[in-house]
């Protein structure tokens, strides 16, 4: 009996020591938990993967510099694999189990929309990394986002068309989610820029030849330019077919193909194509006077140095979200008061990120303007900045 109880006392003591050893550091540091649900695997992994790497990299760096207002950050990342249902489950877990101070993430628009009700109800500040307009229109009190929207890309393209006095265009769009959504946005705002869309064509996600559609565009009288909204391999094939048919009008592509890969795939056919893109992609081409230059070159160097991978705008969105959040937290005096933190995110003014200059307001939870996009032209297999004034 005695030996038995003695033994159990020992065990309890040992357990207490273990608990003290494991539990003590986290208690002493009072870490702030930042939650995140990203599509690290699955079809959207080319977005989610750089986002996760970026967040991890910069949370480490912030902690090395002593944290925010003396508090260290702890990043909790779940992988929703691009599945909206999984994202919603993780959102609930972030709120109820992890009790996070704020959330960054939602790689896809679908995942973001599924998570919004959870964070709205729990009143947790949420900065999404997805592109869709419905995330911020109508404005939701606790929801913000950092990426550009399709609408802004349309505006940038139309402004450039107007400058070149091209007003009658044709659109050829992919039937995937991205192509369709951008097509709809462009059609909606075209009248505002005095642009008439005289002909519309579509192509499927796996199509390997678009010459019939382009032949019809070529035969439509009075077309002055052609816009292709799409993502993946489709725009590269459209570009090749465009040159195969020797269509003389200028071709515009969307920001969805703003990557070196597009130039590689389309080859010589890409020469002369114009497209809007984030400053991050042309970091080394920006003039030194550009406000964004230090930010984008800094991020590019850090990301490429750490991961040995090419920088992408998606990781840049995560960088912007984390910086907007931590800057707001500094102004709000820490992460403790979520309502104060939210108010400070909304008051973000003049923040220079990789995506552009951010000026949030109660009616605008993205805060980017048209200057976030740069108009690029492809010349000899490389990007060239189209000067903002003149054409």
């Amino acid at each position, binding site marked *: 009996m005695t030996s038995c109880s003695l033994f159990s006392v020992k065990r309890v003591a040992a357990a207490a020591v273990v608990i003290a050893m494991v539990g003590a550091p986290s208690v002493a540091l009072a870490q702030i938990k930042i939650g995140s649900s990203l599509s690290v695997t699955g079809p959207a*992994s*080319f977005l989610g993967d750089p986002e996760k790497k970026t967040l991890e990299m910069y949370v480490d760096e912030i902690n090395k510099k002593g944290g925010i207002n003396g508090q260290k950050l702890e990043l909790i990342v779940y992988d929703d694999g691009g599945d909206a249902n999984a994202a919603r489950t993780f959102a609930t877990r972030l709120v109820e189990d992890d009790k996070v101070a704020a959330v960054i993430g939602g790689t896809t628009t679908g995942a973001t929309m599924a998570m919004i009700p959870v964070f709205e109800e729990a009143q947790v500040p949420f900065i999404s990394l997805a592109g869709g307009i419905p995330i911020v229109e109508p404005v939701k009190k606790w929801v913000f986002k950092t990426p550009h929207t399709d609408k802004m890309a349309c505006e940038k393209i139309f402004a450039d068309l107007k400058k070149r006095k091209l007003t009658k265009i044709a659109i050829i769009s992919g*039937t995937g989610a991205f192509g369709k959504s951008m097509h709809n946005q462009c059609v909606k705002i075209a009248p505002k820029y005095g642009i008439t869309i005289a002909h519309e*064509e*579509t*192509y*499927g*996600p*796996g*199509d*390997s*030849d678009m*010459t*019939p*559609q382009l*032949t*019809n565009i070529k*035969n439509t009288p009075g077309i002055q330019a052609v816009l292709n909204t799409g993502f*993946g*391999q489709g725009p*590269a*094939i459209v570009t*090749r077919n465009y040159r*195969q*048919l*020797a269509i003389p009008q200028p071709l515009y592509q969307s920001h969805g193909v703003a990557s070196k*890969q597009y130039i*590689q*795939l389309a*080859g*010589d*056919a890409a020469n002369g194509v114009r497209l809007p893109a984030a400053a991050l992609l042309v970091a080394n081409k920006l003039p030194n006077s550009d406000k964004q230059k230090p930010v984008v070159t800094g991020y590019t160097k850090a990301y490429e140095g750490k991961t040995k991978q090419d920088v992408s705008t998606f990781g840049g969105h995560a960088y912007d979200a984390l910086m907007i959040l931590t800057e707001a937290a500094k102004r709000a005096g820490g992460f403790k008061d979520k309502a104060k933190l939210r108010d400070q995110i909304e008051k973000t003014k003049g923040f220079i990120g990789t995506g552009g200059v951010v000026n949030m307001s109660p009616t605008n939870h993205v805060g980017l303007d048209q200057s976030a996009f740069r108009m690029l032209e492809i010349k000899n297999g490389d990007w060239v900045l189209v000067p903002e004034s003149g054409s």
Partner: protein
Amino acid sequence: MAEFLQFAFSGLTVGAVYALVALGFTLIYNASDVINFAQGEFVMIGGLATVFIAAAGIPLPLAALLAVVAATAVGLALYRFAIEPARGASAVSLIMITIGASIFLRGAAQVIFDKRYHSLPPLFGDTPIKFGGAAILPQSLVVLAGALVIVVLLWTFIERTLFGKAVLATAANKLAARLVGIDTRRTVGFSFAVSAAIGAIAGILITPITLTSYNIGTLLALKGFAAAMLGGIGSALGAVIGGLLLGLLEAFSAGYLSSQYKDAVAFIVILVVLFARPQGLLGRATVERV
């Protein structure tokens, strides 16, 4: 007229791609009644492996050869480790195994290669050939020629060689084939290897047109399968005719009707044909004895 020609060229380009993919279904079906849904993955492996081997500094022709060898090895492995252990299972179960294999191969390609799109340089440059006001890329003709060469080789093999006859016999009646001394395991295994090689060659030839990535196989296999059904599954010439027809249907409906509904139009025509001729255009009508 120029318009019509351009649509026809587009249809032939796309159709030649479908035909090449459809051809891959023929041999395995002939040997084992199995429709191999991993066929599209062989196409993907052919294209992607060539891109990556060439990127490692190996000259393109050698890289293409190595890619075909690699795909053939994968085809043999598929037979040895997935199909053969399930011998005695019904054709439907075997088809399901090939679906599983296709998902596995796609996943593996994501890890071994990457998730990006890649291209290969076309064989004879990318200056379009002008004809009657329409333009066609030389590579389209290469793909067409490739499909025809494979048809002739396949036909000669099946109709003119003893081993080809053995393949046919295995398909007709496995037990009887074994009784007359045919090593049916070897013939079926062989058909998987050759189909994989055909798929890989298709992948290498079409990549300059379609581009390639780890997930390109699914859609190509779907269209290729539809083409094979239309032409009559099991017939090599039928696969080519089915593929070209499907391509032309798509191109003409995209050009003259609406690009929104081109796939729907093509599939409706296929359904109508199969209602009238369930065995496909060139397929042999078979009687199932119960």
